[in-house]
């Protein structure tokens, strides 16, 4: 089943990371008959291994290698060593994700043109648009079994949703539903089991109802015989020849031994911190600032979405933890309407945390009765998450921290982030709306909760028409090195208001198609 490729086989495509981007590009290439070696820093964890327990699951799946932070964002104070909540496992962060799967709105592909100049923002139009992406989105929705697309029914609303929906309607919101979710909503779709409403979507779905690269995409790719996944393989450096083409990668295997795998093409998909870190850690005399960095944009324009949460306490039980974690959305505020005092828009989505995570995230650092009296009513709480477009800023960036090394002695990523005034104005608007929604249903107390460690990490190797403005072209191919591709969320030119994964997957399917065509045309 698993195809073993030789370390010296220089005909293979090497994919680094097996999350939303890497997992899909690897399996799509394998389906087309191309030999692929996927190197994944994490181990393999399947549905039977997942744990219905927040901290235990976090210990099992989360990326806990050191990272550092700086900047004025509150995460740097509350969670200084944990800028992101992302996964180290075969399947990457799609093991943890909630499954909200939305297409960008048409204007969001052209943020610079639509919004005009925004001071301090490094806005740029994507070199692709909604019409170009439409067929790829359809393929992605079919792959992920996205509800409310392709005749798939929506999920039923749980308690948390029913409170949210009632408040939304009271405020006059129209676009309210259980959303488009990569969660199987009936038993006959792709032979996947339908959602059993267990309520641990963030801990890995033990029923396999929620799509994950780890237990859907990767095994399907392996079944072709063309994909070999090497778990617990941490890539340290990408190698190149004198012609400036990449030739392979060095990685530490499960035993900590340094190995070298040759490659015809390398696709980097380590998430928006590790991908630029790897390019920078691969610096050489030919590329002193790191690979693919002639523009100086590697690591820059880091985006994390404008986020925050609102929790409401009611006089009666809600039991929000029962059922799907995020199947509920209000889209009325996603439009671009500068009369609200900011450009771009945001989505409101239901969100539930269990008691252990609620204690950690409701008001990080908070204590005393103001804090505990909120948790006393945990059973009567409802919750929502805010996700909106944030502004790319050149100074929000991932750099190498040479003072802190990981267990292999490699400099770690430092993540610097300052909120843009547009992000702050949008967050305040969203807090007000979110609190009003719960107050309309009789909330006795509401909490505008600050952002958690980032779950959406975007933009540090951005896509641009011109080589001087970004790192990759419209295929995710680096402007500087023809056989080096970026396949993850770090390609994002701008973030849009929508959760990013459907777009990452659609771009990965499209990229695999392009690579296969270019390989058979002998261009790569």
């Amino acid at each position, binding site marked *: 089943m698993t195809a073993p490729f030789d370390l010296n086989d220089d005909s293979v495509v090497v994919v680094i990371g097996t999350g939303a981007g890497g997992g899909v590009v690897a399996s799509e290439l394998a389906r087309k008959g191309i030999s692929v070696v996927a190197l994944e820093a994490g181990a393999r964890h399947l549905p039977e291994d997942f744990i219905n327990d927040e901290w235990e699951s976090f210990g099992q799946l989360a990326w806990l290698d050191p990272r550092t932070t700086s900047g004025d964002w509150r995460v740097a104070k509350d969670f200084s060593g944990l800028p992101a909540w992302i996964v180290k496992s075969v399947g990457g962060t799609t093991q943890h994700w909630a499954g909200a799967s939305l297409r960008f709105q048409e204007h969001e592909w052209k943020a610079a043109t639509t919004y005009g100049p925004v001071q301090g923002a490094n806005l740029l139009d994507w070199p692709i648009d909604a019409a170009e992406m439409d067929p790829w989105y359809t393929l992605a929705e079919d792959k992920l079994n996205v509800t409310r697309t392709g005749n798939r029914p929506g999920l039923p609303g749980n308690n948390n949703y029913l409170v949210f929906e009632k408040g939304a309607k009271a405020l006059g919101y129209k676009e309210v539903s259980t959303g488009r979710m990569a969660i199987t909503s009936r038993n006959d779709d792709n032979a996947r089991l339908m959602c059993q409403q*267990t309520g641990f979507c963030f801990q890995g779905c033990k029923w396999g109802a929620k799509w994950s690269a780890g237990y859907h995409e990767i095994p399907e790719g392996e079944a072709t015989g063309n994909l070999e996944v090497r778990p617990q393989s941490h890539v340290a450096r990408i190698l190149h020849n004198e012609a400036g083409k990449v030739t392979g990668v060095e990685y530490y295997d499960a035993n900590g031994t340094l190995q070298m795998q040759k490659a015809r093409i390398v696709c980097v998909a380590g998430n928006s911190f590790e991908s630029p870190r790897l390019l920078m850690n691969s610096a050489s005399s030919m590329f002193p600032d790191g690979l693919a960095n002639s523009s100086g944009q590697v690591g820059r324009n880091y985006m994390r979405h404008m986020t925050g949460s609102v929790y409401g306490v009611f006089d009666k039980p809600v*039991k929000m933890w029962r059922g799907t974690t995020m199947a509920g959305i209000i889209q009325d505020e996603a439009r671009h309407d500068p009369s609200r005092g900011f450009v771009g828009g945001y989505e409101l989505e239901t969100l539930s945390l269990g008691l*252990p995570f609620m204690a950690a995230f409701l008001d990080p650092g908070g204590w005393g009765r103001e804090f505990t009296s909120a948790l006393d009513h945990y059973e009567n709480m409802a919750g929502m998450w805010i996700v909106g477009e944030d502004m790319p800023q050149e100074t929000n960036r991932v750099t190498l921290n040479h003072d802190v090394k990981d267990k292999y002695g490699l400099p770690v990523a430092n993540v610097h982030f300052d909120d843009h005034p547009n992000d702050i104005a949008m967050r305040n608007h969203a807090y007000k709306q979110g609190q009003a929604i719960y107050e309309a249903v009789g909330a006795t107390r509401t909490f505008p909760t600050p952002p958690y460690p980032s779950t959406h990490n975007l933009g540090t190797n951005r896509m641009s028409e011109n080589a001087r403005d970004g790192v990759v072209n419209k295929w995710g191919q680096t402007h500087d090195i023809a056989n080096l591709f970026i396949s993850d969320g770090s390609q994002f030119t701008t973030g849009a208001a929508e959760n990013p994964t459907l777009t990452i997957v659609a771009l990965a399917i499209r990229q695999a198609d392009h690579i296969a065509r270019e390989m058979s045309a002998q261009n790569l």
Partner: protein
Amino acid sequence: MSQKESLRGLTRRDLLKRASAAGASFVVGTGFLAAPDAAWAYEATHLDAETFATLVQMARDIYPHDQVADEYYVIAVKGYDSADAAAGITAGIAALNAAAQGKGFDSYLATGWERDRVDILRGMEDSAFFQQIRGGLVTGLYNQKAVWPIFGYEGESFSQGGYIDRGFNDINWL
């Protein structure tokens, strides 16, 4: 005279009796800490019992839940009763007592009103000691499975087939 001195020399049984009579929330003996009704007891091995008792009170004052019994706070902090942690904790509690004395109380434990104890804690909120204790409690207290039902949280649900037939949409007051 400290509470500890007043208790020295009594048997554990005497102590428990005496404490129930006084309505104390827990009893400090030589090297141990117990509930007045003897429902639970914890023997401190590396920390002085009064230090440990002060730590437990501090934990409750940081995250006060009146419906959560002392034994859960004891479990939440008993990890500090170790060879590695004892010296740091002893110094931290000594500083806490000094702060209490600075405000005119005999000790932190002898400060009767929660309001006054919280004042003392506010004054040392930024100290590494306070942050160590507070940070540890976030998981030490709230990640105890035995505590979850007190808050209504149901925990693991896979083994019971999820909530698809067990009330995922049973809200009835909307």
